[in-house]
């Protein structure tokens, strides 16, 4: 599914970031949205957009149109991942790649 479809509180793992012809989506990768990275959907802004995501030890907002470009899968044990995100997420991502 796409990151924009993930629900608040879910943790997902990135499979890939879709590129458009101008390639500006590489910014997403520069900032850490890379294959294998665990991302947690933390909260949505009051008006529904943008959404706050937690990954690699920091929090960042993305608008829906950007989140739509990121292909993800649910972390199997979403509850556990949410509890330990930030502490073990690094190791999990490492183990995943």
């Amino acid at each position, binding site marked *: 599914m796409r990151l924009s479809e993930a629900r608040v509180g879910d943790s997902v793992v990135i499979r890939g970031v879709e590129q458009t012809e101008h390639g500006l989506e590489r*910014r997403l990768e520069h*900032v850490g949205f890379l294959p294998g990275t665990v991302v947690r959907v933390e909260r949505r802004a009051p008006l529904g957009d943008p959404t706050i995501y*937690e990954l690699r030890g920091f929090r*960042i*907002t993305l608008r829906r149109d950007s989140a739509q470009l990121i292909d993800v899968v649910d972390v199997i044990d979403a509850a556990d991942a949410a509890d330990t995100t930030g502490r073990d997420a690094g190791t999990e991502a490492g*183990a995943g790649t």
Partner: protein
Amino acid sequence: MSCHDEGSLLADPTATTVAIVGSPNAGKTTLFNALCGLRAKTANYPGVTVSRREGTLHLPDRVLTLVDLPGTYSLSPVSPDEEIVVDALEGRVEGVRPPDALMVVADATTLERSLLLVSEVLALGRPTALVLTMVDEVAARNGRIDMGRLSRALGVPVVGVIGHRGVGLDEVRELLADPAGWDRPVLSPPTSGAERSGWVASVLATSITAPEMDERTRRIDAVLLHPVAGTVIFLATMFALFQAVFTVAAPAMDALDSLFSNLAHAVDSLIGGTLGSFLGDGIVAGVGAVLVFLPQIVLLFLMLALLEKVGYLARAALLADRVMGRFGLEGRSFVVMLSAFACAIPAIMATRTIPSERRRLATMMSAPLMTCSARLPVYTLMIAAFVPDRSVMGPIGTQGLTMFGLYLLGALSGLAWAALLNVTALRSPTAPVMMELPPYRMPSAKSVALYVWDGAWAFTRKAGTVILGVTALLWVLLNVPSVTPPPGLTDAQAASYRMEHSIAGRAGAAIEPVFAPLGFNWQVNVAMIGSLAAREVFVSTLAVTTASESEEALPERLQRLTDGEGRKVFTPPTVAAILVFFVYALQCLSTVVVLGRESNSRKWPAMAFGSMFAFAYVAALVAHTVVAAVTS
């Protein structure tokens, strides 16, 4: 060891150059400032809007040039602003030596991300050292970094600092004493793909226990980003910011105003004659007109600095983002435009926080449409003199409503202008809008002070030099040639006569055909010319050129003013035209100058000035026509 600026950008061409690289918000600038102090020079790169800072570091046996490069997340550039960093590192920028050594500054709390950039820098194969900032926060959040192991894993020296407390700076200086002696990695790390992710993970695994996510920040955000509470707090904060800048700074501004006024008179009387008048009424009054803004600027910068460094501005930008997005802008634009209600100049400078060039430009171009404090005297005078003081609904009167309407017109026009630009002149593809939400932190007094100082000094220097020049010129034009007024006039009338026959006065008369459709006569025109230097000059020029015998206040004098044929100068259509003209025209030359500097171009300020002037004319004409039709 000391630092000082040698007065030229590359102080000593043979000096070793160390470039400081890192992502935005990593603490690069704090480190640079701690090493090189206030006395570093800012230098522009050709063709892009980001700039670098260069300073000199004196060590016992050598002199180092430190260059603070623009922040970037990656060395595979996506925009010209990022490309310039890569170019600078590779020595491809004309006039800039490639650095001899690199210092990567990374936020220790987000190492999992920072290592991405580190891998790319290491792959360049130059002497590199890593400086980790905010190491105290890592410890506070139950993390641990073993510097020794990290250094061995990376193959380069690693130093931890707490930037705002100066901890670790000595170690950094020691490192900088001998870049040639730095350890180098045996192998170049992978710079992309799964291999890089694996490399990052293994480096982290050997040397780091990652800090926990900041619980305090999460709890505060639960309130500040709550749909209801968060929005209310946001609106209240914005209102408070607005109010504070307007009212809190006022006493200081009034005091400065009196000071300069008295100083101008003193200079005029003490020196006397033409020179005294030039220095007093021209220079001192002119410079004073700008410096009067300083309390407002300082206060604005102070509040913005606090909100920014605490971390709240990122949240405010988040809350405003969706609405701003509708106009092709982003949340950060909202914060910028808000400060433009005080003065467009620091607002335009604040657009540096917007990473996307397209959105930065759109925000910069719309900022001058926000009703800045310089328009206030003009609006106040015109409304007091010509809008009848009637009640519309209880305490809400026509005068207040008119003022509010003018503010609203400015704000909506600004948003519309941004939207228009986004669909026409600014059609480049746009990067994803991303805003990092940093943990809430206690701002350090030193970094706040530096931020305020930077902004205030830049304002004073740039605006002061331009204003000084223009005011001096205007004074000359209003007083040359020196004609003898006919006998029998009062002092005030004689002054007005002289002005009518000065170059400026004649110019005002000469352009009458152009502005006649708007209902402007030579006096209004001269005031308009004056307002190019500063909008408030409009008011003072009118005061001088409408001099009369009686002791009437200016509003009354304007009400009575007639032209050579006995017709009233300020009819309702004319007043409407003046007000609408001021809403749109970019009269403030200082703003034009700053626009040019921040966009590093001539085309944008020229376009802003030209198109806004043209639009102001048309809009004023429409206003004139409509009001004339309605009141006849």
